[in-house]
């Protein structure tokens, strides 16, 4: 079961049971973005309150598996209060964390190791990468957030 414990770290189960920043923000002024995974039916709605280039508040609703739900909760805690630039960096770092290391030698992009310390609690999701079908669960909220930032720009 060691694999399983890698996936379902205590932090993840905690965020699944008690999701942070759950709720809605009045939109407008907040931005509302929906994410949907047609394969497993997971849904997430992200509300963003951005002022002067800072993500002042973020709220989430939706439903899905422990991975998608805890990932969105962890995400909200990690990005709240950051500047948009910092948020984008966090998204990029998380995407890297979720990238299956390719063994193929002719792979162009060299995967630079992720600085796990910089990720804080988010690092708990690193076990997901061993379960490739679950990566899209972990990515759902992040892709939705990215989409929201794109709409801002």
């Amino acid at each position, binding site marked *: 079961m060691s694999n399983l414990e890698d996936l*379902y770290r205590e932090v993840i189960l905690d965020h699944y049971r008690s999701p942070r920043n759950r709720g809605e923000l009045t939109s407008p002024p907040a931005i509302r973005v929906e994410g949907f995974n047609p*394969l*497993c039916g997971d849904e997430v709605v992200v509300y963003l309150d951005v002022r002067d280039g800072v993500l002042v508040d973020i709220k989430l609703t939706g439903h*899905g*598996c422990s*991975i998608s739900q805890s990932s969105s909760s962890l995400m909200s805690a990690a990005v709240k209060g950051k500047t948009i630039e910092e948020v984008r960096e966090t998204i990029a770092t998380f995407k890297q964390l979720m990238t299956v290391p390719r063994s193929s030698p002719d792979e162009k992009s060299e995967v630079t190791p992720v600085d796990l310390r910089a990720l804080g609690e988010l690092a708990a999701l690193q076990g997901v990468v061993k379960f490739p079908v679950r990566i899209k669960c972990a990515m759902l909220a992040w892709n939705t957030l990215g989409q929201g930032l794109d709409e801002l720009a």
Partner: protein
Amino acid sequence: MAAGHTVTSFDPCRVRADTPLLTRVVHDRTITYLDSAASSLQPRAVIEAMSRYYELRHANVHRGVYQTANEATAVYEGAREAIARFINAPGGANEIVFTKNATESFNLLAKSWGTANLKPGDVVLVTEMEHHANIVPWFQLRDVAGIEVRFIPVTDDFRLDLSNIDELMKDVKLVSVTAMSNVLGTINPIKELAAIAHRCGALLAVDGAQLVAHEVTDVADLDVDFFIFSAHKMLGPTGIGVFWTREETLNAMPPFLGGGGMIADVRIDGYTPASGPARFEAGTPPIAEAAGLGAAVLYLESLGMANIAEHERGLTADALTRLAFEFEGRVRVIGPGDTVSRGGVISLDVEGVHAHDVAQVLDQFGVCVRPGHHCAKPLMRRFNLSATARASYGPYSLVRDTDVLLEALGHAVTMFG
């Protein structure tokens, strides 16, 4: 029902020994396969029928004169006869059309029969428990032909709600219903629905995808008008499905897919379609797949469908009892709680644990169950669910499989507890 199979030798352990995949080890445990509703496992006889076909007889069918082409044709047409016998098609092999899967069969029904026979305002009556294969083609037809798609509701105890059926039947030209729900396990009263449909001048189409491998099927006795299923859910291969209707109906249906094999003549200014099943089998057909399907029919017949049904009923009864007892309150069965008109498909809603997570934990125990909406989103919405974790039985299933399921389920519940 069809001729009773008086086989006394049904033994699930023998079926198990015949099924290579069941020796597979995953995560250090022998596999516990509980996903036959998604696709069943093939016995060696089916796998070998296909290998032997490729090794000895492969050739394109029809029009051939040489030995192996004749043999390939005999294999292909032989499968048609086996299927006709298996479902007791009154007109025999001439009523059996091979498609690529049950889904294509439904598209054939909607796009050929439907287009020719339904006009704006006509109603196709399906149910809230249908698989998308029996919903989307009707929506597609609605968008081009202006028909209405109406749903028979499902009751809180997971049965069709026929209390209002007379009203629902207004303007209905076709009732299209699953024989057995791939989510609930509910077996619907097909004979009764046939009587209702015919009384109102409508025809009845039946989705037999979940029935054929688990119960004796007799389309003549059921008195249905269309019957559709897939080989891969009845121990057969992927890549082949079946469409049955009476010969008169079939011969009155316009062509669907166009190409070689479905024509009597092609000129520079038009074409004349062939008659019989050939009209609906454009292009090189699934020949090896027919060899596999024919072998699957023989294998199922050797086990005896009545024996399989009884065996799976026993497994289902045992599982339902134990689930209620061991997980009281934590695990809800989305489907009838007893085995009256019910097959071996058990959908679970585990409190506080998403179906995806249930399946993930179970996988670590080598247990194969399917999480998701099972291509039945209207049904999921009806019960306010986004997904269930579904366990389902086959002729090779044993109580031991349920043991492992319950053990793994216990782990999932504790883990997320």
